[in-house]
């Protein structure tokens, strides 16, 4: 994955959210799919709904918004998440 690539939500207005105790559901009105997200994934997807971010930006955001006990989020962790988001049609690479 190109570290310079910025990611953003494909259709911000298509995402509908609901939260219970740090667990999130997001409904994508374009695909009709509902996704279950943990805290970190939800925080990052919400950030990408607001603005385009690089992988490094996302790692920083994950460690700021959803810190883990004992171990920081790494690029490998977040890259997996980004690829899953992309696979679900939730995000896309922003035009440079």
């Amino acid at each position, binding site marked *: 994955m190109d570290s310079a690539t910025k990611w953003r939500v494909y259709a911000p207005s298509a995402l509908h959210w609901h939260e219970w*105790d740090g667990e999130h559901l997001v409904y994508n009105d374009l695909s009709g799919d509902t996704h279950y997200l943990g805290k970190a994934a939800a925080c990052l997807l919400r950030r990408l709904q607001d603005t385009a971010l690089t992988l490094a930006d996302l790692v920083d955001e994950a460690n700021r918004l959803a810190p883990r006990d004992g171990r920081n989020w790494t690029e490998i962790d977040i890259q997996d998440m980004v690829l899953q988001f992309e696979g679900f049609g939730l995000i896309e690479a922003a035009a440079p």
Partner: protein
Amino acid sequence: MTSHAMNTDTFARHLRQDGMTFRIGPFWAHIRSALHGLASGLHLLYDNNPMAPRQPFCDFHVTITTGEGFHRFYRPQARFFFNGHMPFKPLPLDQALALFEWGLNWCISSNAHQYLILHSAAVAKDGHAVLLPAPPGSGKSTLCAALIHRGWRLLSDELALIDLDTLEITPLCRPVNLKNKSIDIIGEYAGNAVFAPLAKDTLKGTIGLLKAPADSVARMNEKARPAWIVFPQYQAGAATRLTDRSKAQTAMEVGDNAFNYSIHGVRGFDALTRLVDRCACYDFEYENLDEAIDVFSGLTP
């Protein structure tokens, strides 16, 4: 009127000639068939439901016939038609009643999109409903059958009809579909349980259709408010245990168990999340039915 007013032969004649129209929950279903075994089964199971030879409007028009050609005589078959189309392969003739029940489930779940339709049993007490969504083999119908013979009102065994705005459950009082060992378990447990003749060697094993309680049928226009979502799991030797479950995961599983969630789009998501918001959500392991009933008696909205 109900079919109490006529004997089985008269009912069978109506069914064969012009068909009979049954009130089943919020629907009118027109059924026509010359199969006497089906007629006697319907007469037994639905004799408390309002019915009429003619009805100006029907939601579903169902015809069940014998097989064609040599299947009229050799390994005789029953065929299910909905609006003149045959959506399923024929089944052996002695499974005609089960075919009717499964076919009607299909008619409702494929067409009644004014509701969010969950694959779930639902029972109610004092206007508060428990939803029991679960995959086949979980003991959902067994638990449902036990509950309705211990003071709970049957709303539905298979399809919970949820109003997308109010979230109320519209009763769909139909027979409870029990399989294999559950038939004997409920036969012994309920005492007064009424079953149609068993359908053996179906794809699901032996099927026993348990008649809905008369009181539940009489109250089929009385909606109930969902208060609990309980995922039952029958487990031989298991201690009776009710445990909290994640609301987000509950919403995902209830959505996965819905027949038409995706059809409703954002409105379905909104209804699903409000439904889960409103309900206490549990996993429930059980083996002993008396203990299970005690646990359900202790639920407070």
